[in-house]
């Protein structure tokens, strides 16, 4: 029973012209070469291009290397608990439709300890951008196996190689109820990264973006070769998808036409295992949105509240007049 209300994202302010400097703070303390740096700059660029008011923007993260993200943003931030970014972000958005909300989460954060919240956040489909920084390893705690580590990954918890097949986060997300936006991109292709996050920011619902992220400290070999040449990526292309300039498009070795309204094809592409498919796998702008329900009765005045409270109390009154 969702109530259709006004558009719930905030309108860019007209009396301001925000620049990149308005979205940054401090010096990012990630390792040199870490994928986090380019994602940070890209998110700041998207905020600038959308002219999000910094004070109306909240970045919520969990714990992990990725969890530090909000500390480097000039917006409001919430660096909470390991695995719990989604519930906090959902709580922020529920009664504050005027805020632009980003969720930043790691592969351990999202797909392991926070897996329950991931499933339900997709189902809530509240308007926000969720960025999964997937480096296939636990970074902050120094190289333990993550649920997305490729089979056989040598880590400090599986020194003889990990023994279970990994979770594929986009495949999983595409299987969840009420999913409305699933995209995949890589930290090292800035044009595609930008276009993806931008598209996500414009989506009226929860936009889930898995960013394949390099972790030179612990997973140097994982994307080392792939990252040097865009030919190693498979571009999912469509007029309703993530659009690149023709020049940028040409750089990709393989291009597959994929209509993002086709969830069955999306699921097929999600399972491609001889390369990394990037682009918009699925989008549906008509799904139920829990943030619209959350905002349906905002702003009731004190008078009205009091009046209705008194009439509720009347039901419990022992005085006969109100039988």
């Amino acid at each position: 029973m969702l109530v259709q209300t006004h558009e719930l994202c905030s309108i860019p302010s007209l009396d301001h012209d925000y620049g990149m400097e308005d979205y940054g703070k401090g010096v990012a303390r990630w390792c040199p070469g870490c994928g986090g740096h380019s994602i940070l700059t890209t998110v700041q660029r998207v905020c600038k291009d959308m002219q999000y008011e910094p004070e109306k923007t909240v970045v919520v993260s969990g714990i992990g290397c990725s969890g530090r993200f909000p500390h480097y943003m000039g917006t409001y931030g919430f660096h909470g608990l390991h695995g719990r970014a989604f519930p906090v972000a959902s709580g922020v958005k529920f009664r504050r439709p005027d805020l632009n909300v980003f969720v930043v989460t790691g592969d351990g954060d999202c797909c392991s300890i926070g897996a329950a919240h991931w499933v339900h956040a997709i189902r809530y489909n509240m308007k926000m951008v969720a960025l999964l920084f997937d480096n296939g390893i636990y970074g902050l705690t120094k190289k333990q196996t993550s649920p997305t580590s490729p089979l056989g990954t040598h880590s400090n918890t599986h020194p003889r190689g990990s023994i279970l097949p990994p979770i594929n986060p986009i495949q999983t997300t595409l299987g969840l109820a009420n999913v409305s936006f699933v995209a995949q991109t890589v930290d090292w292709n800035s044009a595609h990264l930008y276009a993806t996050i931008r598209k996500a920011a414009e989506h009226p619902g929860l936009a889930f973006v898995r960013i394949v992220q390099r972790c030179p400290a612990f997973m140097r070999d994982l994307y080392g070769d792939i990252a040097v040449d865009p030919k190693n990526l498979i571009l999912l292309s469509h007029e309703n998808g993530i659009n690149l300039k023709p020049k940028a498009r040409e750089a990709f070795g393989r291009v597959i036409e994929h209509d993002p309204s086709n969830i069955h094809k999306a699921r097929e592409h999600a399972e491609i295992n001889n390369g990394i498919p990037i682009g918009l796998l699925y989008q549906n702008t008509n799904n139920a949105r829990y943030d619209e329900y959350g905002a349906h009765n905002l702003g009731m005045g004190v008078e009205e509240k009091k009046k209705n409270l008194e009439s509720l109390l009347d039901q419990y009154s022992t005085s006969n007049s109100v039988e």
Partner: protein
Amino acid sequence: MDHIVSGDILNEGDRIKPRKIKQAIVEIVSDSGEGAQKCGQSFGAISAKMGNGVWTVEIIPAEIQPPARSREGASGIRVRIGSDKVSNMGNYADLVIALNEQVLYGRIRQDAYNGNTLMFIENKWAKSEQESIRQQYSQALLEFKELGIQVVEIPMEEECLKLMPDPRKGKNMWILGLLCYMYDRDIPKAENQIRRIFKKKTDAVIDLNIKLLHAGYDWAREHLPLRYEVTPMDVDDDMVVMNGNEALSMGVMASGIELCSMYPITPATSVSHHLAENFERVGGIVHQAEDEIAAIGFAIGASFAGKPAVTVTSGPGLALKTEFIGLAVMAEIPLVIIDVQRGGPSTGLPTKVEQSDLLAAIYGEAGDAPKIVLAAATIEECFHFVVLARKLAESFRTPVILLSDANLATGVQPFPRPKIDPLWLTNPIDQSPWKDGAMPFEWDENTGTSKRPIPGQKGGMYTVTGLAHGQTGKVAYDPEINQASVESRSRKIASFQKSLKPPKINGDPEGDILLVGWGSTLGAIEEAVADARAEGLKVSSLHLRFLFPIVPGLVDIFKRFKKVITVEINYSDTLGNPMVTQENRRYAQLAWLLRAKTLMDIDCFSNVYGQPLNPEKVLKMIKRELKIENSEVNV
């Protein structure tokens, strides 16, 4: 209760004048699903409307629909009404009405009845087609009589069959009619009560139930030689009558809280049911989260964004929330957490009362996480303490845990209608620009308090973090900063404690024994103290509402008594039991806390039978204790 013999009930007529009594305890017990609770609640509500003091306690089996006629499956209610205020469930029932005889066994084991109890039992089982049932029935009647209980067989089914083909769902209102006759209740009020509880049903259903009410009343007039009057009080105050969970819910709505984020758990769930039904009418909303962790995370997110929030839970849920509570302490995010306690540990006794979460509430988090912990002692306090908790949470920028319990949750008691202050309801979130240069944790040097920026406030942008941080909110890598920030958070709690007054003593300010309680045991303790004092014993009591920080002045009060004993519904070792020594004895939770706080030798009286405390048990304990003292003096 007066004696009657079974034969009497068939010939006596309507010529009985009600006899005045001060109070009555009535139970209705049945298999679940037979409406005993609805009957008892209605009896309580009618009595409250007539101006009587009322206290009700629900008797709830652990399963939704246990097998019929099972001894452990008793579902029902106890209603105590009085000419004065009633504050607890009392001792033994004067009258119990049972829809089958088997469920009475469980209640007998729980010590609910004695030789003065009158039992009205549905007599249809005597004519059951099943031989085994007929045998069980006659056997039970014999056993009850041997206990000295007066048993009267009542043709409930037979009488109700005159009005409906399947009386399983109608007998309760017939019984209500019988009770209305026996205790001289106001019939128009009873009719209104029926209209109210069946307001979502058809007129035909309402008519039928009113007919059943009258049939029960008429039958009793024809057949019962007993009739009582429990004179109502003269109260000018406009009163409301509700149970503790309804009071918590109404308190949430009156407090200006806008969001209840919860995950279902007995006995807390009915708070959110009530909110789900009504909250949106006063501008609030309920979020049912995917689990308790998400529930509190969601509430914290909303509160961070300037929307006052509450999360409602019980023991197992509180355990799951601890990491987030620690974050709320660390990041100084106001939040109200309501814990309607049940028996523990683990899944424990979901429907039964216990007060075992006190130390978990105060000390449950990893790391140093001081916060405010309050406990409501009455239904009325369930309402007002939510309002208070929200205020404290915001003034001190902290989570506040409000403890209630399964006894208060379903207990019903009238209290003066709250006067809603519009100030409670105002919540324009501050969106004015943040003061230039002010830091997000600008701790006042004397009080430790600070003002928080709220998203939307220009210039206030900061990042909440559970990592150690200083006044700027930035991650602290310097150990000095950590020491200073932990001190500031602790100072806030101290400055709140400074504003509290010493607790009031019930009874003389000095004597032989001082009983100290907290939470729902207030009424039983005070009644026991009144009884003891009436016998000339030098006993007083006091009841704590603020458990953390603890109220001032306790040492001075305790010093004036020979012995201080906490009375609690939680576990403590009993000296004399195998392996228990003075050294390894585990104390009840409040006793533990008070011993640490006062360095005094405070004793405790506690148990975990899952039953509300009754005054008689406390009185017996008082007498036992005083004898021990005397004998020591003699030695």
